[in-house]
């Protein structure tokens, strides 16, 4: 009886898993079909006339207004640079807040940062656009990178970690004559690799997948990130060209899917940590 229940549960889990995976399998299968077969409405998982034309054309840059390789490079570099800035700025700020008691106005800064976590993005979206517009920075990498550096989530996450860091190690270093910077670089950073990786994965995936800001902050095809680029494709001349579209979405998904599968544990941990605040 109990055995039967277990089997039923596993079966149920498998059925649900199929539903979850099906759209992805269909994406992959469609990406190897020509646009006509993709529109035929036949439920063929193995393409009748498999073709790699969709990938070849896209990756060679032969598709009009779809510099897909440039989009990927844009997304990866914007993601990496923004993540680097976030890790660097947040870890220094969290260090000051958690470990340097003579920091002036420490409590005020901290409550301000925490309060900012509750501010909806829609509040800053238009003025941020106007700000970059006034600085003539719309359609530049600066516009794609800088806004992410203001998020307080990283400061908050690292603060919680730094505050529980044993004081003795830090004091031992101070007695050896290390100054604050040396303590930060030589003691604190090496012992927080794991949490930094976690924050890094979260930040990178957030930036890589962000949609609305890069859509409006870029205006020319070659400045698009892959997320914004795919959106313009789907709205523009590639409507219902499902073979081409699916090949490009597959290419767009691969980097972040790999990072997700590799960093899944850190990712899950970070989400639960964020949820427990």
């Amino acid at each position, binding site marked *: 009886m109990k055995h039967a229940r*277990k089997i039923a549960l*596993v079966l*149920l*889990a498998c059925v*649900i*898993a199929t539903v*979850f*995976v099906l*759209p*992805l399998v*269909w994406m992959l299968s*469609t990406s190897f079909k020509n646009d006509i077969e*993709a*529109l*035929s*409405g036949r*439920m063929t998982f193995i393409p009748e006339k498999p073709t790699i034309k969709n990938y070849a054309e896209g990756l060679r840059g032969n598709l009009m207004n779809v510099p897909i390789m440039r989009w990927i490079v844009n997304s990866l570099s914007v993601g990496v640079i923004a993540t680097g800035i976030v890790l*660097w*700025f947040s870890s*220094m*700020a969290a*260090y*000051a807040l958690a470990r340097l008691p*003579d920091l*002036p106005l420490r409590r005020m*800064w901290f409550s301000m940062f925490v309060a*900012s976590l509750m*501010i*909806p993005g*829609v*509040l*800053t*979206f*238009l*003025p*941020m656009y106007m*700000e970059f517009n006034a600085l003539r920075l719309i359609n530049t990498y600066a516009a794609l990178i*800088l806004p992410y550096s*203001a998020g307080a989530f990283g400061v908050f996450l690292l603060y919680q970690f730094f505050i529980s860091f044993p004081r003795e190690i830090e004091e031992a270093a101070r007695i050896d004559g290390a*100054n*604050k910077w040396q303590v930060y670089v030589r003691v604190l950073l090496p012992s927080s690799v794991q949490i930094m990786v976690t924050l890094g994965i979260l930040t990178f995936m957030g930036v*890589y997948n*962000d949609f*609305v800001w890069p859509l*409006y902050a870029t205006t020319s095809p070659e400045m698009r990130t*892959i*997320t914004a680029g*795919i959106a313009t*494709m*789907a709205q523009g001349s590639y409507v*219902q060209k*499902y073979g081409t*579209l*699916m090949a490009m*979405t597959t290419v767009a998904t691969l980097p972040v*899917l790999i990072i*997700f599968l590799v960093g*899944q544990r850190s990712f899950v941990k970070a*989400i639960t940590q964020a*949820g427990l605040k």
Partner: protein
Amino acid sequence: MKSGWRSRLTSTLFLVPYLMSFGVFLLFPIGYGIYISLHDFELLSTEHPFVGLDNYVRIFTSGTYENSLFFNGLWATLQFVVYSVPLLIAVGLALALLVNHLPRKIRGLFRTVYFMPYAMSASVMAVIWLMMFDTNAGFINSALAKLGIQFIPWLTALPWAWVSLVVTTIWWTIGFNMIIFINALNEVPDDYYEAASLDGASSWAKFWYITLPSIRPVMLFVMITSTIASFNIYAQPFLLTRGGPGDATKVLLINVLDHAFIRKEIGSASAMAMLMALLIMIVSVMQYRLTYGRRGIGA
């Protein structure tokens, strides 16, 4: 603790880079947004006269274009919130319970599979479902045809447009809620369940009297984050239904951004954005109060 100005200065230096970002890309935009919303700020014009609360008054004056734009958008957004949030919570919890009752060895696998769509970007997710829901060539209608069911216009007729938006959203984001619930379920002490078993409690009774009360704080967290996320919905109707049929799924954020970037009325769009942000914050405070208050009486 006494420390000299030099020490205080070096401590401050660590905070300066982040503080500058925070000031330039968060605090300033908030203030600037309020400023813009008080002006007639036409994007292409060079003069932006001060108009006081006019932009806000227009939104609340029935019959104006801004009034219909804001409240029609709000109505669409609220519909989506009402349709999606209960499901996002219930399905998230159900998946978490399911995963937790699977044999230990395969739990990780299923957790990963259900969570995977969360790693997709909004546009990739939308494009995939655009193809799944396509009326003539879509996978879903093809499958239904095999069962002898007539084509359903998933993206171009009501109520199907809402069904599609909710289904896509669940597929895309449910993994996040599931992970939070799995974590919460694992933290319920085992002896609670053992004691209940000794008293002969049924599985249902255990769920109702032990599991649910124990995870209430997490439930609140999921409720708030799901509500905020659904309030901010944009990509799904923007790419899937394009606000249609008619304007039925033109949610508030679509209207605000169209008003700003297509009609170039940044001032009035900013006023709408302010009100939308205010609503989001009020809703989260209210949910917090409601749940917190109920705990006082119920427990």
